[in-house]
């Protein structure tokens, strides 16, 4: 699942279009309402483009909307992230309705909720006032933006509540948000902002950042004494550090759910925002008794945080693979166990953002069973104090059964990695 939503975010950053689904027309009523909404609010929406300096051409586009009379604009962080990472090579421009391009500055970002505030110096009589909106599942909503650079468009859809399995809140909007619409608003027919378009899984499964997060970011900018951080990464690092503290400090602390996987008893679904999938496979079906059987139970969080095109953080994954055999002798089972334990569990990464992995392997007397434990760690070059880590553990003790479990954390402080790893070691046992 997490890979699907990750893919969805990637899709939004580039300009390539997905085939848009034709909206169903249900009589004359909605059509009238939609055209009215469009006519009334389209002047509050702008196109954002990132201009690559050496070619003087746009490398990506997105959408922004006015949220104050003095010209503050909301968009997604991922729309302007190229500018954050390579400020000199990528400048931000905002296009007005008449097509004039105006350079924009990034005032503040909320990397965790994928939001950013821009300012151009323009003032506007026409803007959205942010504030809480009461909604019921099924309410009709309108999403505005620039899909695939085809011009400002409006899309109808329905409100389907908040996602249940995410770390940070996200609204499930059933309607076609397409690349380029990122950063645009989704509103009610009377012009109340429900959320900011952020990502899609395709087939009308789209996601919004709730209005509350946007309001909070605007309030931060409005607060007296606010000044934009000279180095955006200081701010981003601080936000990500707080974010990982919010879910990692308590990870595995309260007795988490335990399940049986093969002959093992392991941790599963440590918090409600994890989702687990499982399966089992025989090595071959030619004989009645297979050479060995592999059973897996994998849990992960659904969402991750976009930092750059090649860099996501916030991933938490817990994976278990039990291997059992009735036919292999101890030496042959050892070789099989070694080969499964040797499979590289680490996520890939880009040299711009991460160091190489450094690993330590040790035989450890974990509380419930002896294990072989490997911790791999790498540093995040632009986010000082945060690391990616994978703890891979082999549960030892029998010559015909073994468990390979791993805990993957990304963008976490060393303290949290250390504590989560130590707790994880206590959550693996024989049945």
């Amino acid at each position, binding site marked *: 699942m997490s890979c699907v939503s990750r893919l969805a975010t990637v899709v939004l950053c580039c300009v390539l279009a997905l085939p848009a689904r034709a909206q169903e027309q249900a009589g004359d009523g909605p059509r009238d309402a939609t055209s009215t909404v469009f006519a009334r609010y389209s002047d509050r929406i702008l196109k954002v483009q990132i201009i690559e300096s050496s070619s003087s051409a746009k490398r990506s586009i997105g959408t922004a909307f006015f949220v104050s009379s003095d010209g503050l604009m909301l968009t997604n962080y991922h729309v302007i992230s190229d500018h954050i990472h390579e400020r000199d090579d990528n400048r931000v421009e905002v296009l007005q309705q008449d097509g004039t391009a105006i350079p924009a500055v990034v005032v503040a970002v909320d990397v965790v909720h994928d939001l950013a505030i821009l300012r151009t110096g323009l003032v506007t009589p026409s803007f959205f006032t942010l504030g809480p909106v009461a909604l019921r599942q099924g309410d009709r909503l309108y999403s505005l933006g620039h899909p695939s650079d085809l011009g400002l468009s409006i899309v109808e859809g329905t409100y389907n509540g908040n996602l249940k399995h995410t770390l940070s809140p996200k609204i499930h909007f059933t309607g076609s948000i397409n690349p380029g619409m990122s950063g645009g608003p989704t509103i009610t027919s009377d012009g109340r902002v429900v959320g900011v378009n952020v990502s899609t899984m395709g087939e009308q499964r789209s996601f919004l950042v709730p209005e509350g997060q946007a309001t909070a970011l605007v309030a931060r900018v409005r607060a007296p004494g606010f000044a934009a951080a000279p180095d955006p990464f200081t701010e981003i690092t601080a936000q990500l550090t707080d974010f990982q503290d919010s879910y990692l400090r308590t990870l595995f602390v309260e007795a988490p759910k335990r399940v049986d996987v093969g002959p093992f008893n392991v941790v599963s679904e440590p918090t409600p925002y994890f989702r687990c999938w499982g399966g089992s496979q025989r090595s071959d079906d030619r004989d009645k008794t297979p050479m060995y059987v592999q059973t897996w139970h994998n849990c992960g969080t659904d969402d991750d945080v976009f930092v750059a095109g090649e860099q996501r953080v916030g991933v938490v994954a817990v994976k278990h693979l039990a291997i059992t055999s009735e036919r292999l002798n101890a030496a042959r089972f050892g070789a099989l166990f*070694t080969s499964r334990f040797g499979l590289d569990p680490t996520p890939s990464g880009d040299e711009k953002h991460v160091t190489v992995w*450094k*690993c*330590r392997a*040790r035989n450890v007397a974990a509380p419930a069973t002896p294990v072989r434990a490997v911790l791999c760690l790498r540093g995040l070059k632009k986010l000082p104090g945060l690391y990616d880590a994978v703890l891979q553990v082999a549960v030892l003790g029998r010559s015909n059964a073994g468990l390979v479990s791993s805990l993957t954390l990304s963008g976490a402080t060393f303290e949290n*990695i*250390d504590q989560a790893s130590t707790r994880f070691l206590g959550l693996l046992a024989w049945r």
Partner: protein
Amino acid sequence: MAMIIEVLTGKHGTVRQRVRVDVPSMSIGRALTNAVILEDPHVDAVHARVLRSDDGQYALEDAGSVNRIEVLTGLLQDRVALSDGTEVQLGKTWLRFRDEDAPVAPALPLQRSVATPARAPRWHERTSGRIGLVVGALLLTGAEGWLGSSELDAGTQVLGVTLGVAVAFILWAGIWAVAARVITGKFAFLAHLAVIAAAWIAFDLGDQLKNTIEFFLPENRVAPVLYTGLLLVVLAALVSGHLAFSSHLSRVARWRVGATVSAVLLALLGAFALVDDDQFTSAAAFSSEIRTVSPSLVPKQSVEEFSAEMADLRADVDELLAKND
């Protein structure tokens, strides 16, 4: 004292024919009546005569030939006094004259007689021992393939791998055997096969030992040093072993060559590893060896000690980050 005439293949050449002179006069020429018959169209039917004077000195006298007698300096002469080592040219044929009591070099030992004949050949010098080594190496390969496979059709895989190794052995030994034939005149194919088989067994057991130590004492510093040492020695022994059957080098010289080759090879491998180390990769390398032995036999750390190791690891990563700044 008799004089020996050597017919040479050329100027300072090797000897084609030797004739003993112990009569006062003896003729040399192309005619079949001569004592020394030369097959050379530039030589007269009777070209020259070897004459012994009363005081026992020998001389070569021209018999009125067309091309006369040429000495090493290139001069043409009618009479040449002969002593040990004198070389002359008749027509296009070179002759050398030797005293019969001139010393000769000691006999070169034959390869099979390196061992003193009194001693019985050791096991690895016998055909049965050598075949045993080859069979042992192949059995080891097969057994390891079987133990390393967890698939239903392990047997077929093992057979394939073992045959592949056998073919590689034969090619390797074949190359050495051909080189040996050129240099020593003997193929010694089985000996070369035994040498590569023995080295294979040593490499393999060393590798197994290294991996087993790696499981019990992960990331220890001694095993890699020992393993590199073993590689150096086995590689030197391999080269030196092959040279024993394909050269006339002494034992010391053979080991010197072997040590040089193995040191250079390992240095090259080390250099490659360094280059590799410098490249960015998002793949992780870690020690993944697992042995299914009773965990009570395995030295273990406490969770607290492992946590301290993590802090160490963090210091390593921070060092990388600092380098990046």
